[in-house]
């Protein structure tokens, strides 16, 4: 495929695919929960970008894009934020209770924070 044949919607679609892959990698591979949350947000951004590419391809009738997937992205962004907020609250509580910020078993030699 030559560069000229690549339209900007497809370009952003491929970007979405790459972002989703990177986000997924962080979510699976990184032990720290906070970083995983950032990974979730990147994964979400990639997914929304795929929606955006779909919307852009559907530009018609004088609209710059298909409004239906755009509206879905707006809904999705708010839901994703709520999920992050719930996860952060859980993480902070877990940390306050146990001193852990990861779901992996604590590494050897690292003692959990003493309870006050």
């Amino acid at each position, binding site marked *: 495929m030559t560069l000229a044949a690549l339209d900007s919607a497809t370009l952003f679609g491929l970007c979405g695919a790459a972002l989703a892959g990177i986000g997924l990698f962080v979510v699976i591979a990184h032990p720290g929960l906070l970083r995983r949350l950032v990974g979730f947000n990147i994964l979400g951004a990639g997914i929304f970008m795929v929606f955006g590419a779909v919307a852009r391809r559907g530009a018609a009738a004088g609209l710059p894009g298909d409004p239906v997937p755009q509206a879905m992205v707006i809904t999705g962004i708010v839901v994703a934020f709520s999920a992050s907020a719930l996860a952060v609250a859980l993480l902070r509580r877990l940390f*306050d209770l146990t001193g852990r910020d990861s779901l992996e078993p604590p590494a050897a030699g690292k003692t959990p924070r003493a309870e006050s």
Partner: protein
Amino acid sequence: MAEFLTGAAFFILAVTALGLFRVLRSELAVERMMAVQLLGTGAAAALVLLGAASTSPATTDVALLLMLLAAFSCAAFTLGQSEEPGDAPAPKGDES
């Protein structure tokens, strides 16, 4: 004209990108927060240019919002920054 404005937007984005990576690779945590300020201004400039290029007035709204939130994020970061481990207040809200 539109072509020129888009080109200018591209130039500013590229220049900002250079600066951003310099800042993000910095050793100092404080310096990294300049990234947001840098990007906020750069992106706002690019958006204003693109808005003029595409004659879509709403693009300027995005620039407005971006500027607003760059300032907001900057404030947020500085707060986290000020809490060095030593002078932090005892965490509240744990069971007594």
